[in-house]
């Protein structure tokens, strides 16, 4: 089930939380939603789930508009809100039964679905405990189980792994990946590595606008631009090597990394690579290379670059 967002704007007073946002998510896609605090991630998710309404523009989930057909949209969405609100006084199993009923799970399938959710989310030992008594990680699992109970076509997860331990994070990621094969998933997170590991597509928004959109490789390439190498060349004097490197036609810029005489950072000119040139240079001068590492732009750098003010 596809999600289409067209020209969505939402303001709180004078501040625009979402600013003419348009994008589309296709079935089978896991979209990672990134952005600094207050970028409009949660607001967008709340509009998709019909909790809030946009001022202008529209959101369609499987062709149904959130403004005209909210009931239909809500049926197909599984939503895990930020901070994972739950009825703390309810036992886990009662809570799941309550959500199943609200989501219109057929009475004859109810038991089976609840059991399945308890198994997939690893809640077997806690099913009769009150939610209040559970640790944060288990509460998160209960929230996730509630979001998945009606086998929704669309899954909206607002920071699904907060409060989980590393093992649980990996489990939840695997679960999301498995689910994401046939469904449409949007998940937001602060943890870039997580988004990179889980999502097929990453979207970074800032001040309500999309500032980057693509796979993690695409984003990196986009931000990286020119090749950057860190080389350690020994066998010659520091200044000779520096000069020789600077004279190479493919190299635009050379820099010392530290006080250490032999380590350089070499930036190539656009569209060319300098590894061979450096190697040849060393051969002809009798120097030798002890280290050569391409410096990859990390997603963190991309993030910082596109969201910097």
């Amino acid at each position: 089930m596809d999600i289409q967002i067209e020209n969505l704007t939402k303001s709180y007073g004078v501040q625009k939380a979402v600013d003419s946002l348009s994008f589309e998510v296709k079935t089978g896609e896991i979209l990672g939603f990134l952005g600094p605090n207050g970028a409009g991630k949660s607001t967008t998710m709340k509009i998709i789930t019909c909790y809030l309404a946009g001022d202008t523009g529209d959101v369609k989930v499987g062709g149904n508009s959130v403004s005209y057909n909210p009931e239909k949209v809500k049926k197909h969405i599984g939503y895990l809100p930020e901070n994972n609100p739950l009825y703390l006084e309810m036992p886990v199993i009662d809570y799941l039964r309550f959500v199943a009923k609200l989501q219109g799970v057929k009475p004859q399938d109810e038991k089976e679905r609840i059991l399945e959710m308890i198994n997939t989310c690893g809640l077997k030992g806690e099913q009769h405990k009150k939610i209040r008594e559970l640790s944060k990680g288990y509460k998160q699992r209960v929230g996730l189980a509630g979001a998945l109970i009606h086998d929704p076509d669309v899954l909206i997860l607002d920071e699904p792994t907060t409060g989980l331990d590393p093992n649980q994070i990996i489990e939840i990621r695997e679960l999301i990946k498995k689910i994401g094969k046939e469904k449409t998933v949007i998940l937001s997170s602060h943890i870039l590595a997580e988004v990179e590991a889980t999502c097929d597509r990453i979207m970074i928004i800032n001040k309500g606008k999309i500032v980057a959109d693509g796979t993690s490789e695409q984003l990196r390439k986009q931000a990286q631009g020119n090749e950057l190498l860190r080389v350690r060349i020994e066998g010659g004097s520091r200044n000779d090597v520096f000069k020789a490197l600077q004279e190479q036609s493919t190299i635009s810029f050379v820099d010392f990394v530290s006080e250490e005489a032999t380590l350089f950072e070499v930036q190539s000119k656009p569209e060319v690579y300098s590894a061979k040139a450096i190697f040849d240079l060393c051969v002809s001068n009798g120097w030798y290379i002890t280290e050569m590492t391409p410096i990859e732009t990390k997603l963190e750098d991309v993030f910082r670059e596109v969201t910097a003010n």
Partner: protein
Amino acid sequence: MKSIWTVAHRELSSFFDSLLAYIMIVAFLGFSGFFTWLRGSDIFFVNQASLQTFFGIAYWTLFFFIPALTMRMIAEERKTGTIEMLLTKPLSEWQIVTGKFLATLLLIVIALSLTLPYYITVAQLGDIDHGAVWLGYLGLILMSASYISVGIFTSSLTNNQIVAFLLALLIGIFFHIIFGIMAGSLSGTLANVFYFLSMSTHYESISRGVLDSKDIIYFCSIILLGLIGSQVVLANRK
């Protein structure tokens, strides 16, 4: 309809799980029992087989108990954020509000049905006007429903339960006595308007054994206004 019942069922079991229901029932039975049977111008003093004394007392006890039951209804859900969970389920604001309304009304009906032994006892003592008793109960239920609806409305306005409680009492006190007092101290059409607005006018007329469409319209309008008001407030979040 099924969703309304699902919401109501959860609310009702949360009343019983949190002991609130038991406390309310015990306190209600204690108060009304004490004043009906043991103290002051009690039921024996009247020298008549009638439950008027009990209805007069329940009129006041319910007035104070109901805001305490309704205050958390929506305010708490707002505070903990569960309202977001609820509103993103395929469920309209109206269904949520009426579900909560029904749950509280059911609790009141349960509490009232536990006073049926009073009725049975008094009926043994002499000739009782059965019609008046049943209408008296109907009057109590209608009055409770009105205050529940008001209470849910004030609970939807805030995420502070105490504010919701006091606000419900404040609105309630106007219907409960202030309009009646104003009707007495004014004259002309204004007096008639306040007389009509006063809860006691309609409650007394029903519990005396007269069922008038005016009274039914009065209670139903308060109930509907409160419920629609809460629905509008909830829908306004957008």
